[in-house]
């Protein structure tokens, strides 16, 4: 068997991507100068770290956790208590290191609770994480001294001695703190996937039995990965505490854990950069989509459902699959189908959206009258014509979409076959 030696002193593509990422983090607040966009950018940084740390479990370790918010949330609380200690003069660390306090405490709780949870894998693991999450959330209502009860714990991030004039009073300073932590965390988590532990973790996900045979203790590997994940989750939590200056019990709640799971999966758990997309989407959904429509959770759930059924690799896998098609120069062949799919889907969604919005309107704002605006059209939530029109639009869209989808599936299959043949041909040519 011929061994192919590769000599790559510098992985140019990787350097370009990481430089671009750093550059993006640097210039993003200069491009979007509005106050809201700064808030969103900060939250995106935090969400990216949280989703990536979650993906160490879900994507890399195959561990479906329903309780990741426990580690981000407890990290938040510990960082907030540390911040208050700094303000009170009891603790002498700079504010910029508080996320590390959060990270270490997240790690500590992962050491403690992970010992129980990682004894199992697969479905039992998922249920135990759910149980632990409920345990912590129920405790948050019991110990109001630590968790601050209903009001939560608040603090002031302008505390301690300013370092080089950085007080963290202005928002932009907080943004850059988050940006630095985001970059370092993303880089560290990427580096983790390249370590022997990261590799064996993938093996534990794919075939635990074989890993046992080659002499590794799968439980130990899961436990170590869980601890690392807890550390970065805690960092995200600590940054959240500095950013919002208040921590309430909902940060350890089941809804937050569910959101991490949902968006990590939507972004794509099978690729390293998937959760980055997921984190960005999460903030967009929470901040913008929830403003736009009251039914956003329903849309989110439906999108998630269809994603699991039809694209289990998330958005990242969709991007990578199309990149592969583009690499072989075949994107042009399928372009028309994409256009058709997009247009028919839009028609269908417009109809379905109108119906959902009308039902929500009847349920929530019927005091405001029967009329509502939806995509520039006036609808009457009690009028037969509006309902009929919306249903007609939806059904037409559905029929056309199905036709477009069949056409697309045919073309996609043909292209994949061509690509396989091309790969075979190149291999034999070598």
């Amino acid at each position, binding site marked *: 068997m011929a061994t192919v030696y590769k000599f790559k002193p510098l992985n140019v593509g990787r350097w370009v991507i990481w430089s671009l990422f750093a550059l993006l983090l640097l210039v993003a607040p200069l491009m979007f100068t509005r106050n809201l966009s700064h808030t969103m950018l900060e939250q995106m940084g935090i969400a990216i770290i949280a989703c990536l740390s979650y993906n160490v479990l879900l994507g890399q370790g*195959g561990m*479906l956790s329903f309780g990741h918010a426990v580690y981000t949330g407890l990290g938040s609380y510990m960082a907030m208590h540390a911040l208050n200690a700094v303000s009170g003069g009891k603790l002498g660390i700079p504010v910029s290191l508080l996320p590390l306090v959060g990270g270490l405490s997240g790690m500590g709780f992962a050491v403690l609770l992970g010992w*129980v949870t990682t*004894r*199992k*894998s*697969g*479905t*039992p693991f*998922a*249920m*135990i994480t*759910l*149980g*632990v999450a*409920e*345990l912590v959330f*129920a*405790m948050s*209502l*019991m*110990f*109001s*001294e630590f968790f601050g009860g209903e009001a939560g714990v608040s603090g002031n991030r302008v505390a301690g001695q300013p370092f080089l004039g950085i007080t963290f009073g202005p928002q932009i300073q907080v943004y850059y703190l988050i940006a630095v932590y985001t970059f370092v965390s993303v880089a560290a988590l990427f580096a983790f996937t390249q370590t022997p532990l990261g590799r064996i973790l993938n093996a534990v996900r794919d075939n635990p039995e074989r890993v046992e045979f080659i002499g590794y203790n799968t439980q130990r590997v899961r436990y170590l990965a869980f601890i690392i994940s807890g550390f970065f989750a805690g960092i995200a939590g600590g940054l959240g505490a500095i950013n919002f200056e208040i921590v309430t019990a909902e940060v350890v709640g*089941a809804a937050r854990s*569910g959101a991490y*799971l*949902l968006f990590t*999966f939507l972004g794509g758990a099978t690729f390293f950069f998937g959760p980055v997309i997921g984190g960005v989407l999460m903030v967009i959904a929470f901040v913008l989509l929830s403003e736009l429509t009251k*039914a956003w*959770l*329903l849309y*989110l*759930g*439906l999108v*998630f*459902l269809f994603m*699991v*059924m039809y694209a*289990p690799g998330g958005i990242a896998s969709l991007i990578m699959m199309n990149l592969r098609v583009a690499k072989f120069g075949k994107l042009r062949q399928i372009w028309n189908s994409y256009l058709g799919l997009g247009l028919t889907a839009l028609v269908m969604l417009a109809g379905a959206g109108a119906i*959902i919005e009308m*039902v*929500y309107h009847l*349920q929530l704002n019927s005091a405001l009258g029967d009329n509502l605006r939806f995509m520039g059209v006036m609808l009457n939530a009690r009028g037969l014509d509006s309902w009929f029109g919306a249903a007609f639009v939806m059904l037409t869209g559905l029929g056309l979409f199905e036709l477009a989808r069949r056409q697309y599936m045919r073309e996609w299959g043909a292209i994949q076959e061509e690509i396989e043949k091309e790969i075979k041909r190149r291999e034999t040519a070598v």
Partner: protein
Amino acid sequence: MEFFLISMLNGVSYGLLLFMLSSGLTLIFSMMGVLNFAHASFYMIGAYFGYTLTGLIGFWPALIVSPLLVGACGALFERLSLRKVHPYGHVPELLVTFGLSYVVLELVQLIWGRVAVEFQPPELLKGSAFTLITHSVEGMRLVLGAAPADMCASMDTAVRVVCSPFPATRAFMMVVAVLMLVALWLLLTRTRIGLVIQAALTHPDMAEALGHNVPRVFMLVFGAGTGLAGLAGVIGGSTFVTEPAMAATVGSVIFVVVVVGGMGSLAGAFLASLLIGVIQTFAVAIDYSFLSLARDLGWQLSAAAQDNTFAKLTVSQVAPILPYLLLVLILIFRPKGLLGTREG
């Protein structure tokens, strides 16, 4: 004594309700390996269907019809969605049911609103099933239905009379659960379809080779399991509250039940349901803390110790976390679960 008896009965009835839910969950899990995260959502749908149908056709027909409807919804979901994900493995299956729980919650809020609906039990079940009368002189007596007022009041101040009624809805809950348990057991062990189910459970390929349609058996089992959840929903909804949060409150507890009982073990689920039902009911009713314990033992505590959060916690305050504590303890000392046979 009457406190103990009534609490015990309440605990057992709550435990039996939990069993109605966890039996379906266990059945589905042991058959298909799918942990149905949306199981409590089907329970909620059952309650809301029951509420709507009670308004249309009355409570008793609704008690039959809504579980059937919920079962049909479950079977439809299995056919259209879960079966597509099945080849990808167990984690996507769990994820699909997780997504369903989001959608169901939103749909329920969309259709029935965000506040609790008034789902009343029928007249027959509104009163009490029986009343325990504790008489400090004559001892304890049991009266069917509500006790007359003169029996509960005492003429003499030296004689203490306490009447503790037991609600009829809870008694009904127990009867239905026990009937269901017996029916399920008979179905699984004494009928042909039960044999096929058991065969498909352990040897799906062999059962398929013998000419049984295993995917259809899976669909039926999923439908039956969710139907049981729907039945529990009609009864639970009319006994407690019918609100959008009801799925979340009971959902995590039934997962604890399934793990504590042992994954995939029906008998284990039964035992764990009763255990958790009784523990929770008793814990809620006991207003006792370390502080009162120390006081009863005659210890002198310092002011700081008396103000300690841990010392002040009463058992009733700790009640919500007890099932989860039990879960953690079971996992540490008996990872298989109480009656489980396999380590997951």
